[in-house]
């Protein structure tokens, strides 16, 4: 038997960018633990359909330099933090100095603040389930810490634009930590974009802790190029009566993986997770979500839609785990999938584990094609076939796109969707 492949030691090189000592120490400790880390294979259950798309070469181990120009596909109207290859660029960032809200790059933390953060990093993620997140902890060069004091409200969405410049092979390790105090509120947009065409890897970790009554909306827009392997993880821990909303819109690539883990730890906490994935050509996209109902009286609502064209491959794996004490849990998960070509593949797997006896838990998953009767109805009214295809495909995801609470994100997604339609549906 062939030995299982392990992470090349090239990826464990020391990093260049300076950080406060406690974070350097954390990185080093995490790096040591990664020696001989097995890479996911077809036999790794949560990478079953995706391991074949993961292609890490030694020249991708190099940290991409944090210099060059930054741009964004979002004409960002308000607060913005720009990251280039995982390092914050203050000159391209613009955000307010508001009472009760601190937004800092890891670089700017005092040793005391950094020590406090080092204690908290990784605590939202089950690292056994999200192996690749460990690599981010060993390699992040910078990051963004957002702290909201009790009752603090950010009055506009904050855009975090993560750009990688793939002018040479390498990697970037964006990192975010959001600490939302009691009854605080924030809407955060993470946009992932790229320039250049060399093969690169982006390995992200975003963590959110929500104290009692906190209200966090997280929007994730993945629009990186065909040369970017993206492996991201988001971890969320929610205390009593907090609310977390996630809206993700992702376009495929050579490898796209996002793990979203939510722990409902305080009674009355609720989360809503929406996701749209669109793949074409030979693209891939894999969403793995995990909702842990730890406390009683929590609600979770999850809706994901995949659209796969050409020979592309989309994967959804949604796990809901209702712990023994989580009585009166209410969990709903729905995943619908649309295949636009015979060569496309979609794999969907709902996983429910329920250990409490008084819960409401519903799930549904479907895979289908565009409905012929609906198409005929539309074209019988003189609507061009291409337009009818677009209307029906949009209809499949409209409900989710319309729920994204930031107009510029909806518009950006729509523009990219229109390109997808142009490439997928021929003119008559």
């Amino acid at each position, binding site marked *: 038997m062939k030995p299982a492949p392990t992470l090349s030691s090239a990826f464990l090189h020391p990093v260049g960018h300076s950080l406060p000592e406690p974070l350097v120490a954390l990185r080093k400790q995490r790096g040591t633990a990664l020696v001989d880390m097995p890479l996911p294979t077809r036999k790794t259950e949560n990478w079953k359909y995706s391991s074949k798309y993961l292609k890490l070469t030694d020249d991708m181990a190099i940290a991409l330099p944090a210099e060059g120009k930054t741009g964004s596909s979002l004409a960002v109207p308000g607060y913005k933090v720009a990251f280039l290859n995982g390092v914050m660029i203050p000159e391209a960032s613009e955000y307010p100095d508001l009472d009760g809200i601190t937004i800092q790059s890891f670089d700017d933390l005092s040793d005391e603040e950094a020590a406090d953060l080092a204690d908290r990093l990784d605590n939202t993620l089950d690292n056994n389930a999200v192996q690749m997140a460990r690599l981010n902890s060993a390699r992040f060069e910078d990051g963004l810490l957002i702290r909201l004091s009790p009752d603090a409200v950010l009055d506009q969405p904050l855009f975090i634009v993560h750009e990688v410049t793939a002018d040479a092979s390498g990697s970037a390790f964006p990192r975010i930590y959001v600490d939302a105090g009691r009854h605080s509120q924030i809407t955060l947009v993470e946009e992932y974009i790229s320039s250049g065409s060399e093969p690169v890897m982006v390995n992200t970790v975003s963590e959110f802790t929500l104290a009692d009554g906190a209200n966090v909306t997280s929007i994730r827009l993945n629009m990186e190029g065909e040369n970017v392997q993206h492996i991201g993880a988001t971890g969320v821990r929610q205390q009593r009566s907090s609310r977390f909303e996630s809206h993700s819109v992702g376009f495929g690539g050579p490898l796209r993986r996002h793990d979203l883990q939510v722990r409902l730890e305080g009674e009355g906490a609720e989360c809503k997770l929406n996701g749209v994935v669109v793949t074409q050509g030979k693209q891939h996209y894999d969403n793995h979500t995990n909702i842990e109902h730890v406390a009683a009286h929590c609600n979770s609502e999850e809706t994901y839609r995949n659209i796969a064209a050409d020979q592309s491959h989309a994967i959804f794996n949604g796990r809901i785990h209702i712990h023994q004490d989580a009585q009166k849990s209410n969990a709903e998960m729905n995943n619908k999938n649309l295949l636009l070509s015979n060569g496309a593949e979609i794999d969907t797997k709902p996983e429910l584990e329920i250990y409490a006896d008084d819960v409401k838990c519903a799930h549904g998953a479907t895979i289908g094609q565009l*409905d*012929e*009767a*609906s198409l*005929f*109805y*539309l*074209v*019988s*009214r*003189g*609507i*061009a*076939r291409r*337009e*009818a295809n677009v*209307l*029906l495909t*949009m*209809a*499949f*995801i*409209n*409900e989710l796109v319309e729920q994204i609470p930031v107009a510029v994100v909806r518009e950006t997604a729509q523009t990219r969707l229109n390109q997808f339609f142009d490439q997928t549906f021929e003119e*008559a």
Partner: protein
Amino acid sequence: MLSIKNLHASVEDKEILKGINLEIKAGEVHAIMGPNGSGKSTLSQVLAGNEAFEVTSGEITLNGENLLDLETEERAREGIFLAFQYPVEIPGVSNLQFLRTAVNAMRAHRGEPEMNAAEFMKLAKEVSKQVDLDPAFLKRGVNEGFSGGEKKRNEIMQALLLQPKLAILDETDSGLDIDALQVVSNGVNALRAEDRAILMVTHYQRLLNHIVPDYVHVLAGGKIVKSGGRELALELEERGYGWLGIKDEETADSSAN
């Protein structure tokens, strides 16, 4: 306007239409009656261009143009409109978006400028009143959650918006209570015009009390077995189909085999 000559059509290799001949002139209203399984709906679908039905021989022309050479959407733009017996529900596409896209497709075909959202909204509200539909329905998904009667009224509303040359009404009366039948009939009568023809396909005579046809044809076993005026429908109501040698629906079904 519409000329059908010796039309044969099959679905899944089963011949349903076995030589239909029909001439419809502008301004005329024709009714096609017949038992279930006689081929009435097949004729409607073939005229609209449903690819599930294969035309094996014969010809159809609209104002001299060969309809069979045209795709469904091209036929619609040339003026063919089919009011469906079972309109589909399309959640996620709003009625407003659907109707405006359709109207603008027609306008583009005629070389007219697009209607903007505000202009169209005004027009759509007016027309929805004509068929007694609450304009709030415009914001809902296409036919989504509509009652049977609302769906039929939506079909007629589309005909009023699209102003076709030939409107084909497939069992438009089915599933309607008497009030809805009156509303739908008023809508259809509003469509009657010198330059437009209407082809009604119906199982029952009662629609013809509200929309009085110029000609009535009886379709059985995939052929038109009798044609006449308005009085033929009344005779069918009184005597059934038996006197034409069509015993009952089952017989008609098996004769189509």
